């Protein structure tokens, strides 16, 4: 990779610069222009870049010049093997995440119950989507008037979220303790609000 140089010290400095160039180009989100790179490794940047380009030419990753800058890209000939699937990963809607969470915590739970917990109607698409994704499935019918269908989570749900059993879901107290559930405004100076039982009991006054 390094051209013959007579001076060992010089060779070492050269290797150091090539390594820094490699790292800079690798870590940058945007192609880097020669001027920027010259600021880091000196005026011989052009030669160094050509050297790197030659080194990577036969490899699975190549150094390419794009627009005014330089960037590493996976080799063009590998594109068919790297081709990404059509579907791009998407964010699940907030309604869907909430619905999934409620099913996880309250299962078996009917759609009516989910709606009363969330306080808004659940669109049919939400449950369909969660089911299509394999996270939930219909459970037994509830033996109440109308025999509504209940929903429960699947093994795939556990798998996806890295849980061994449903019992490993943090409890409401755990969530509160971890700071993930914080509804009550903190009353400064009244340390005694920890005394939940006393406060909770006269809530109805």
């Amino acid at each position, binding site marked *: 990779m390094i051209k013959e140089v007579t001076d060992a010290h010089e060779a070492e400095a050269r290797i150091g610069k090539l390594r820094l160039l490699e790292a800079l180009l690798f870590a940058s989100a945007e192609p880097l222009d020669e001027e920027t790179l010259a600021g880091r490794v000196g005026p011989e940047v052009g030669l160094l870049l050509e050297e790197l380009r030659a080194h990577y030419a036969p490899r699975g990753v190549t150094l390419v010049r794009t627009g005014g800058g330089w960037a590493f890209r996976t080799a063009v000939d590998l594109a068919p093997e790297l081709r990404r699937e059509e579907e791009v990963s998407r964010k699940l809607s907030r309604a869907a995440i909430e619905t999934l969470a409620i099913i996880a915590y309250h299962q078996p739970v009917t759609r009516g119950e989910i709606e009363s917990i969330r306080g808004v109607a659940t669109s049919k698409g939400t449950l369909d989507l969660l089911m299509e994704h394999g996270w939930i499935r219909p459970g037994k019918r509830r033996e109440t008037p109308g025999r509504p269908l209940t929903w429960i989570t699947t093994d795939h749900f556990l798998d996806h979220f890295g849980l061994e059993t449903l019992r490993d879901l943090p409890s409401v107290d755990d969530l509160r303790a971890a700071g993930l559930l914080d*509804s009550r405004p903190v009353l400064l100076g*009244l340390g005694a609000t920890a005394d939940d039982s006393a406060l909770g009991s006269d809530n109805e006054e």
Partner: protein
Amino acid sequence: MADLVADLPAGCEADAAAAAESSPSEQLLLVLDGFEGPLDMLLALGRDQKVDLTRISILELADQYLTFVAEARKVRLELAADYLVMAAWLAYLKSRLLLPEPQGEEPSGEDMAAALAFQLQRLEAMKGAAEKLFARPRLRIDVHPRGAPEDLDLRRKSVYEVTLFDLLRAYGRQRARKESGVLHIAPVRLYSMEEAVRRLSSLLGHMPDWAMLASFLPSGESGGLLTRSALAAHFAATLELAKAGRVELRQEGAFAPLYVRGRPGNSADSQDGDISEEAQSHD
């Protein structure tokens, strides 16, 4: 005091410098701010012995801690309960170490001292480990991943990006919304002084003789904020009523139970002057 300030954990030197120019109570406050609880403070005091933690003198440490707490209380500094619990425990430990061991099932003073030494070592070890951990080259700070990843989505485990954190946070928010649907500021029930004055006035008519103030407290509340505020409100109310000449107060000594009775004749000539004088005059 001065050497306590010098024991600050690393990173608080600036505070220490500031402390040198402020009042003793401010100094103590600054010192306390630097600690993560009583065990952390003990550890800082322990480091000052400049010996290996395995050979630390627990007795000396207990003395240092108790001195610190005594100083803090002298300047009427509000100490968190944690610190007082530790002080009580250390005082007990000290007595166990100094007095002959009683026969019993309790762990010996030596065992208790060893347990404390172990806790200090363990905490010290974790602090050291944390330091080493964060001294390591860290991702996106020292070491960097590919800056322009080409999204291959190889794993194809899921089309949707949802982590357990997202799920738990969604549920937490949902619960929080539910708990505070109509902004429910959990009512902090406090006993007001007016309430206590009303209550005492009506009760005193039925209590011709001296009675403990505590016996006037509303029943059915045990411990907690409400009870404590009721006590405070009733105390303030008795002072107010005494000032108006409607009740008399009596107390044997500091922190002794406070007795109260309706003033015979209950006329309107209000008396100024402090409670203790008035109490003495009736003894």
